[in-house]
């Protein structure tokens, strides 16, 4: 499945054989600052595509626009062949394009299990009238509970299932955020730095989870600053800088792309840059 990508030329905006997400002319500016200006980008179905770039490159803003949490000034994008621009965030999520947040959004005064159950889709009990008659939703609820348990197990959160989500640690919140996104049964998942603050062992197992998801047919788009992870699990890497896609290709190609190295080095002098500075001697310090 992922081998098809090897034959593709590595120029920004290159068409993919089977794109699930196609973005055209997406533009978002804050005042005079072009936070996102993506001319054309396609994301291959069933692959792990990583989105990298220095701090402030516009990655999160790009996610926000795609998922309806921010309104771009211009541009169109379609998911699975259907146009998404102008849709509300919840409609986009229902179409199967689901995101997580860089700053986690645990529902603090709900239990971890309730956080999970809330994410399940098509629960008839969530409609006002049906909610009054438990018989309508009891079965769905029981099925969701089983699935939630499974996912919590996989993310090593089952011992916290009955606790309020507000009591979770920062890393655990990242895990819950991801488990919750999976609970919605997405066809593509946008992960905004899922491993930031997660301990290395768990990050390792998260990485293999993500690969497993891909192997089960899910499309994954991943924003990540940890280059080891990016290079390790990505099928394709897209690099953004100052809102633009400056390079895309297989991990090794992007790693060696002078434009990418320049972007990171340039960003080194920008005020936002704080951590993970690449060593200029070695591309991206890998």
């Amino acid at each position: 499945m992922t081998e098809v990508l090897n034959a593709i030329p590595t120029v920004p905006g290159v068409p993919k054989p089977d794109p699930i997400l196609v973005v055209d002319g997406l533009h978002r500016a804050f005042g005079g600052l072009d936070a996102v200006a993506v001319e054309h980008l396609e994301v291959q179905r069933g692959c792990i595509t990583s989105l990298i770039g220095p701090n402030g490159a516009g990655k999160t803003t790009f996610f926000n626009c795609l998922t309806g949490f921010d309104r771009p000034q211009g541009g169109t994008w379609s998911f699975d062949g259907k146009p998404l621009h102008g849709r509300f965030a919840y409609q986009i999520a229902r179409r199967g394009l689901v995101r997580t947040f860089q700053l986690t959004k645990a529902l603090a005064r709900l239990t971890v299990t309730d956080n999970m159950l809330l994410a399940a889709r098509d629960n008839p009990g969530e409609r006002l009238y049906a909610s009054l008659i438990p018989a309508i939703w009891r079965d769905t609820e029981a099925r969701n509970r089983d699935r939630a348990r499974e996912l919590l197990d996989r993310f090593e959160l089952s011992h916290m299932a009955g606790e309020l989500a507000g009591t979770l640690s920062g890393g655990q919140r990242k895990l819950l955020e991801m488990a919750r996104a999976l609970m919605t049964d997405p066809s593509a998942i946008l992960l905004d730095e899922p491993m930031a603050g997660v301990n290395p062992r768990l990050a390792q197992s998260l990485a293999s989870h993500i690969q497993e998801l891909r192997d089960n047919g899910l499309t994954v788009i991943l924003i990540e600053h940890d280059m080891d992870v990016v290079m390790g699990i990505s099928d394709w890497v897209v690099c953004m800088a100052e809102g633009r896609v400056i390079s895309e290709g297989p991990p090794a190609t992007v790693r060696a792309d002078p434009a990418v190295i320049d972007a990171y080095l340039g960003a080194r002098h920008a005020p936002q840059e704080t951590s993970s500075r690449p060593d200029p001697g070695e591309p991206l310090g890998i």
Partner: protein
Amino acid sequence: MDAVNVLLDALRTSVGPQAIVFALAGVGLNLQFGYAGLLNFGQVAFMLAGAYGASMTVDAGGPLWLGIVLGMLAALVIAMLFGLPALRLRADYLAIVTISVGEIIRLVVRSSTFEPITNGVFGYRDFAGWFYDINPIPGGRYGFGGFTFSERRLWVIVVGWGLVAVASLLVFWLMRSPWGRVLEGVREDEDAVRSMGKNVFMYKLQALAIGGVMAAVAGSLRAMDTEAVRPDFFFTIITFTIYAAVILGGAGTILGPALGAMALWFVVSFSEGILRLGIDSGVVEFLSLEDLAAIRFMIVGLVLILLVVFRPQGLLGRREAGLIDD
């Protein structure tokens, strides 16, 4: 009037119609504020809708029950008025819009331009005959010792607490369903709930509307109890008093609003009684009886501040789930 009478009076007030009206409007506010996290500062506008729905319908020759139903429908319209501009925006915008629209409605109702329709500042009187005609309780006084009610008042109390019970039960039933879970999710973080594919706006609007209808019924009940409706009862300060009741009882708890309303009216009535004693006997010189109404709201304001500072979870809330504390 001695201290015992003050106590009895306070007890009577805490189960009486005033407490009931605030409890019922409070159950609605609790759904909006305690469970959905909506800062609705216009609850009093829903009460106005209920009161005027009842009195205007009777004035126009219709039956009282129809008026109550019309009041509830008007509440739905007001929920739209509140919701359409503000529910998509940050929480504090809803506060601004609801407080403003509530005030607009009161200003329009009391204006001389609309006096032909609303009777302006005079409002309506004596329209609730039907409600007392269907009172099955035989005449007399009921209770024990100094703690008695007339059959008329008892009827209001029975119907009123019955309504509070029904409303509380409805909220209980809703909140243990998946619908209620989404609502609580909205309170915690609406963007997260959106990212899970829920139409947050719809849930907020539904909560606003259900809570508003409850407040409208509370307004009708108050109108029937006093048999007088004037626009200048429906000040914003009434909304804030409902807040005090809900937070005192425990926002986000089923029984909080009812208990809070009783407790608040007990505190208010008791301190008023004591002050009155003091003024009558000349011990309290710096106040006059006319000041008592203002002092009532001073107490309510103080209750709000002290609660958030010292016991944000109220009487019934759990500390770790302290709803208005982070």
